[in-house]
């Protein structure tokens, strides 16, 4: 088991290497460096040259990549090209916790809505409850965040006036964005829980428990649920990572100062170090999330453990 984990951890290094290489060269393949654009066109060519030299942008791309790696390994993710007073490390330190908190709240919403919905659907399979539950769940995936967000703002902030419109800071301001972000995941969790419950209910040991005369409630909660939730729990990790790294639309609509919004802005402004930093960071999160899942599966399934 330990060797399995260590082997997986070691594999993250070449993975990150490849990912950073792909992103780096992809980024540099795009025309229009950070010091381009009509606002900056008035910079004398010599001044632009100076800027490029200062940021090593005039060197061959592979050399820039190696320099970047060398610095990154030592913990320095580079300066932000467009803001002279912050480094990428500063930016990540200031904006990542925001996205993480948003992702966490969205996850909470997803679990609070999705799991019960899935259970109810499974228990009332092919009856009204099931159809309604699944309909709600699938609607969650079908309404894009860019529409759900403004809709919720309109209903709760402008019409009912019980929540603030946007921004970050107070607990009331987390509610709408967390819901917007988490609703789609609620649908995923609902379907997963339902499928898992359906499978577990058909198992022999459930039949045995019922035959033994246990109440339906005890059967559900004590026996079925515990086993049905296993696949669900293993999905939580990657789901959280996905929520945290996929929050750009919600951040934009609700004016939340998170990494997602910053990433899009950086891509549009060719702020290379920030782009690289974000990609690497998110990749690390995804890898860790997947690793946790695989470890949990390995732990639960002895066959893999001893492979």
């Amino acid at each position, binding site marked *: 088991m330990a060797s399995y984990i260590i082997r997986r951890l070691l*594999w993250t290094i070449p993975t990150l290497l490849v990912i950073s290489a792909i992103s780096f060269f992809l980024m540099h393949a795009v025309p229009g460096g950070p010091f381009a654009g009509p606002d900056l066109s008035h910079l004398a060519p010599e001044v632009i040259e100076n800027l490029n030299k200062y940021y090593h942008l005039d060197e061959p791309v592979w050399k820039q990549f190696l320099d970047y790696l060398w610095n990154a390994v030592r913990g320095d993710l580079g300066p932000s090209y467009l803001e002279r007073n912050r480094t990428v490390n500063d930016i990540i330190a200031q904006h990542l916790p925001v996205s993480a908190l948003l992702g966490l709240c969205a996850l909470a919403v997803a679990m609070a809505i999705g799991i019960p919905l899935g259970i109810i659907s499974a228990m009332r399979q092919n009856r009204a409850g099931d159809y309604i539950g699944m309909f709600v769940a*699938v609607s969650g995936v079908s309404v*894009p965040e860019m529409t759900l967000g403004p809709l919720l703002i309109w209903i709760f902030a402008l019409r009912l006036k019980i929540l603030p419109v946007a921004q970050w800071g107070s607990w009331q301001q987390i509610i709408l964005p967390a819901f917007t972000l988490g609703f789609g995941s609620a649908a995923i969790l609902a379907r997963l829980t339902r499928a898992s419950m359906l499978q577990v209910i058909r198992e022999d040991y459930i039949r045995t428990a019922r035959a033994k005369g246990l109440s339906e409630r005890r059967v559900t909660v004590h026996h079925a649920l515990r086993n049905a939730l296993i696949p669900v729990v293993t999905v939580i990790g990657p789901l959280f990572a996905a929520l945290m790294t996929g929050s750009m*639309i919600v951040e934009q609509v609700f004016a939340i100062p998170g990494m997602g919004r910053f990433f899009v802005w950086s891509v549009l402004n060719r702020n290379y170090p920030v782009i690289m930093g974000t990609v690497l960071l998110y990749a690390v999160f*995804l890898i860790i999330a997947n690793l946790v899942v695989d470890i949990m599966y390995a732990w639960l399934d002895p066959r893999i453990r001893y492979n």
Partner: protein
Amino acid sequence: MIDKGDPRVPRRRTLDSPRWDAIRRLVQNRMALVGGIIVLALLILAVFAPVIAPTHFSEGDLEANNATPGARFLLGADFMGRDMLSRLIYGARISLTVGFIGAVTAFLIGISYGTISGFFGGRTDAVMMRIVDILYAFPTILFIILLMVVFKTTISPLSGNAFTRGLIAIDRYFGGLLFIMIGIGLTSWVDMARISRGMALSLRETEYIQAARALGAGNGRLMFRHLLPNLIGPCIVTVTLRIPRFIATEAFLSFIGLGVDPPTPSWGMMISEGTKVLRSYPHQAIFPGIALALTMLAFNFLGDGLRDALDPRLKQ
């Protein structure tokens, strides 16, 4: 003595083969049926759009801008006075094209990759799966944004050779869709590869394959005629369930400005534009939103139905 029952009662011939069983189960699943019908209807709309739609999607009357649903415009008009109904019908083409071609790309790349990897096993498999793992760790959204920016800017008037010019021409014909489809395809084949590889791996050892090999079938033939048919089923299911996500991805790209070119009526673009005027002219966001939701619902139900139908454990 085998009891065949009373010979005077005619025996009923039942369709017992697995395929008919699956189809029967699929049809019995009401939600899947509804889904299938909707998909079919969409296909018809898409194919016969020029005949069905009241006007061409780019015809508009500026003075009628933002008209509410009424006699002239059944579902209202957009900001340029173009008929929403017509644009929605033509939009079915775009969304279905994105969905299908994205799916087909992912399907083809994924299934070939996975089959080869799983079939050969050993070293080949290890290397190929490593690559998949690495790509799996790549944050998809970031990747697709970067990819789209690269496509839209490098394959542009700035580049000079015939190949890229050809691509640009194709892209223009599709209204700006080509690169979106490529982008979506490139970021979604990985799941398919994993699934097909897993199945190929387990099927490889079955007697069925061993027998074929013993009879002298070469690798190619084994993969193509023996493995693939078994893989297609689950892969189709997976891909069908992916289609809604492709359509949503196109909507997202349109939202941040990396989507289709004007005047192409993609539902994603229409939702994005409609959301901006949500409080003034809600009909502009509601109708494409319903269309998108219905489509995604349909594909989801269909996919669920297919999966339940093909799952041997659910045999009744």
